[in-house]
Every structure is written in structure tokens, then in C-alpha cells.
């Protein structure tokens, strides 16, 4: 079974600085998808960025980028120029390409605090 681990329960960053959130996963599959979701206090999960395992190039979405290390099974999220609105809980998630359901397997989450 696949597992996702986020070893940082809480992180903090100064506004305008850069922060990196860590995620590791375990799988025997070679094809899969990885995601970072943001959950603000409103509880609504928002997709931040996605990475397809067969793509070597790291995904980037504006101030958000990932460092995908397939061999190490590592998938970290870098937030550049942090803003107050980035404060939220961040979840790393895995989705199998072979699963019929497309269900997401989540890590435990990292709470990010942004200090003004």
C-alpha cells in the first residue's frame, strides 16, 4: 500500500521569504501523480500544484514550485515570496495511475504560519 509522510507538523516563514515543505512517499508503482493541496481555515481544499511521475521536469505555478526526486521518493513544495494569504495547512497527496477510483492518499499535513 502507498503511504505519504509529512514530517513537519508546523512551519513558519517571514513574509516575502521562501519556505520549503517536505513530503516523502512510499510506492512500488512507477507511474503516479503527486499533489500539494492548501487548506485554509475555511476548510476548503485547494489544489496548489501537481506533478506527473513520468515527467522529469519539476512543476511550477507562479510562486509555487516542487522539487520532485523520484528515486528518493521525495516531493517538496517551495513557496517563494511568501504572502500572508499563504498561511494554511498544506497536504501532500498521492494518486495511483492504475487505480480505478483515483482516490487520493494524503500525508498528515503541515501547518504554515506566515509572519508579517
Amino acid at each position, binding site marked *: 500500500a502507498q503511504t505519504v509522510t509529512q514530517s513537519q507538523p508546523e512551519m513558519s516563514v517571514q513574509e516575502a521569504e521562501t519556505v520549503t515543505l517536505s513530503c516523502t512517499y512510499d510506492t512500488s508503482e512507477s507511474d503516479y501523480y503527486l499533489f500539494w*493541496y492548501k487548506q485554509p481555515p*475555511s*476548510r*476548503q*481544499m*485547494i*489544489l496548489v500544484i*501537481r506533478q506527473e511521475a513520468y515527467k522529469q521536469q519539476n512543476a511550477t505555478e507562479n510562486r509555487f514550485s516542487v522539487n520532485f526526486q523520484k528515486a528518493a521518493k521525495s516531493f517538496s513544495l517551495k513557496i517563494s515570496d511568501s504572502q500572508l494569504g499563504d498561511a494554511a495547512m498544506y*497536504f501532500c497527496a498521492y*494518486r495511483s*495511475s492504475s*487505480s*480505478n*477510483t*483515483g*482516490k*487520493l*492518499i*494524503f*500525508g*498528515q*499535513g503541515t501547518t504554515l504560519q506566515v509572519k508579517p
Partner: protein
Amino acid sequence: GAGVSQSPSNKVTEKGKDVELRCDPISGHTALYWYRQSLGQGLEFLIYFQGNSAPDKSGLPSDRFSAERTGGSVSTLTIQRTQQEDSAVYLCASSSRERGEQFFGPGTRLTVL
């Protein structure tokens, strides 16, 4: 268009009572998921519906949990004889296709006293 909506936003119930949680997916989305977010277990998959296919119930924690999806749209998650360990946020997500991007609702926070 409108996103995924869930009701109620919060629900407080007494141990042993039955509860129903509702999810309205994005119009036209054929895939619908329920997840549970609790302090002890984190975020876990419960059940998946895709069109008219039989649902994947592999994540339901016990037979007290059931869900249905009427007319391929609205879904109801029912918890019978609620227990304190059922206290959690129940999240619903929908997708336009099998294994497509999932859009989440705001969740229902269930508290069992």
C-alpha cells in the same frame, strides 16, 4: 459556476443518533468522493462514485457508514448509531472524469457528544 457544496456546515449530535451529510457536486461531474479528516487518522478516503458504476466502498470504516448518490448528482453520507470517534470533518469532492482533478467542498464538521 458553483463549486461543490456541502450541508450542514456543522452538525452536533448525541452518541447513538443517526446523521445524514449531504454533498452537491459541481454540475456535470460524474465522479464523487467522500473523505474524512480527523485528528487521529488524518485525511482518509471513504467512498467513490463514478457514473452508474457500483461505488468503491473500500474506505468505509464500519457498516454503520453508508452512502448513496441519487440520479448521478447529489450524494448523502449516512452514519448510523454515531460514536464519539466519528467526530471529524467530512469532505466531499467531485471530478469531471474518472481520475481527473478533484474539487473539494467546504466540508461538514461533525461533533458527537
